[in-house]
């Protein structure tokens, strides 16, 4: 029972990281109709800059701040210099150009930080475990990630639902030409939205820093999970991103944790272990295929 709660929390934590990634990406898809493979690069940049600043200054909060600024800045530059020219082009061109960006950023981090992965320490004030319910200690850093992620999710919701900027963004997602015709500065709005998405990815990256190794190419594994989230949730839909992220986070974590035990009930242990390993790593893709057969446009399509 305790194990289940612990794994549920781990699933929630992965889900929240995925939500931070997919919220930005789904907005960019929804509003600009652009497919951005380089979104994982912002995650990587956030993690690298965060890890470096954390080592240099010893302050985790400064590290987060630096990571956010770096990711948002790089995001804005990428949008202005490259992606802006690709909005009217076909998806294929966007895929290729952003693929080029991935090559560039991955290699650039190798040049600046070397091939060895960086390791980021958990900040001192978050390094202990907290006993959430009696008998279940849980790392306070992971709890902090969950709380911070929920906080950001609420802020995002407030931004979209309650502010004028959010209204423009939502309007842009449902009919961008009309919003432009009504006199909203679409170019600026696009740059801001893109930069906001990059900032969220950078936040996800720096928060993952103490949990994972910070290395070149780390953005791609999470990017593909993010794609799965967005496809499941429905492209361009924030609600879908929330649902998809939680679903993928839970299925992935719980699958890895419990499939071996479950399969051992019916199979001998070596077959069960190898089968469970394959199934667990494929579980989310199977989930995605199943959802698409059922609902080809995802659970919460934005333009239903």
């Amino acid at each position, binding site marked *: 029972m305790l194990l289940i709660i612990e794994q549920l929390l781990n699933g929630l934590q992965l889900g929240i990281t995925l939500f931070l990634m997919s919220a930005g990406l789904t907005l960019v*898809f929804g509003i600009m109709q652009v*497919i951005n*493979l380089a979104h994982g690069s912002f995650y990587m940049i956030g993690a690298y800059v965060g890890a470096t600043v954390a080592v240099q200054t010893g302050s985790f909060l400064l590290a987060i701040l630096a990571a956010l600024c770096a990711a948002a800045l790089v995001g804005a530059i990428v949008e202005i210099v*490259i992606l802006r*020219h*690709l909005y009217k082009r076909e*998806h*294929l*061109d966007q*895929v*290729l*150009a952003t*693929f*080029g*960006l*991935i*090559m*560039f*950023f*991955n*290699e*650039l981090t*190798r*040049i600046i930080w070397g091939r060895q992965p960086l390791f980021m320490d958990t900040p001192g004030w978050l390094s202990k475990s907290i006993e959430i319910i009696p008998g279940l200690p849980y790392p306070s850093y992971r709890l902090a990630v969950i709380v911070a992620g929920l906080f950001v999710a609420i802020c995002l919701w407030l931004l979209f639902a309650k502010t004028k900027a959010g209204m423009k963004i939502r309007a842009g997602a449902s009919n961008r030409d009309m919003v432009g015709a009504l006199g909203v500065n679409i170019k600026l709005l696009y740059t801001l939205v893109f930069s906001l998405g990059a900032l969220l990815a950078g936040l996800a990256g720096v928060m993952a820093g103490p949990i994972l190794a910070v290395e070149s190419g780390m953005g*791609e594994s999470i990017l*593909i999970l993010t*794609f*799965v989230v*967005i*496809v499941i949730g429905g*492209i361009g839909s924030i609600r879908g991103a929330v649902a998809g992220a939680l679903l993928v986070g839970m299925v992935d974590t719980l699958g890895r944790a419990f499939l071996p035990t479950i399969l051992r009930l019916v199979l001998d242990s070596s077959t069960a272990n*190898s089968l469970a*390993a*394959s199934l667990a*790593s*494929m579980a989310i*893709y*199977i989930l*995605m*295929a199943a959802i*698409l*057969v059922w609902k*080809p*446009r*995802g659970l919460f399509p934005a333009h239903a």
Partner: protein
Amino acid sequence: MMFIFTRKRAVISLGALVVFFLPIVAQLTGDPYLISLGSRILIYALAAVSLDLLLGYGAMISLGHAAFVGIGAYVIGIFHFHSFDSSPLFTSPFLLSGSENGLFVLPMAVLAASFAALIIGALSLRTTGMHFIMITLAFAQMLYYFFVSLEKYGGDDGLSLYSRNSFPGLDLGNDLHFYYLCLAALCLFLFFTCRLVNSRFGLIIRGAGNNDRRARSLGIHSNSYKLVTFMIAGGGAGLAGALLANQTEYVSPGLMHWTLSGELMVMVLLGGLGTLFGPVLGAAVFLLLEEGLAMYTEHWMVYMGPILILVVIFAKRGLFGLVTGGSKKDD
């Protein structure tokens, strides 16, 4: 039919001459390395041409084409594995034992890859646009993780082959023989795809690629045509994978990694979308550029990325369009 000597035909003939005589020149000048580089280019070209069928004709933007390359390679690897320790692949419903015979395993690789394409295509083609891109990518990653966790066949480390396949009349261990086998495979596939895209079938695929709704309203069940194209492209990629496994004598999940899918896409676009011969040129330029940049710096990707972005933004019709000139209509 009258033979008209267009600039495009001149370029293709020139290319064919270069490709045909390259190994002979390489032998004379004592650069056997060129032959194996040449084979690698031909193999990637084969995979790129098959992807061009999807991207350039059917407007199916698949970002998971490497999956079929990987499946083709694994068929060779698995047959080799069982032939080496003389155990059967499986015993029921019928006995299938390992094999080294290229005449058997190469077609098996094509079949297996086409079959995988049938399943992946049937599910993916329920969607269009961005969903299709991401779903093909996800299926490829799924297979990647499947083979990573497949401990019996080496898992993450992959399988090493102890020899290349046997082939009647050829010694594939000899790089020269292997080169001409790759060339023959590429020529056959190019011939087949050229006939295909200019047939009624190809017309439907191009029509459905341009405007699927209109094709369907004309009473054409376009999804079946797309699925068959997806299978043919998968088979071509499987053949490329099988040859690649033979060339490197090594098979690993890395062949299915999505970066390879991306690189194949780059080759197609670099050479020219929807030109079939363009991707061959694209593959050659991409691999030569990679080799050339790698000679100067280990960080060649930091230059390749921006080059790619520039090509996308400025050279819409690819290199093949640049060298053949004229508009796309005159072919």
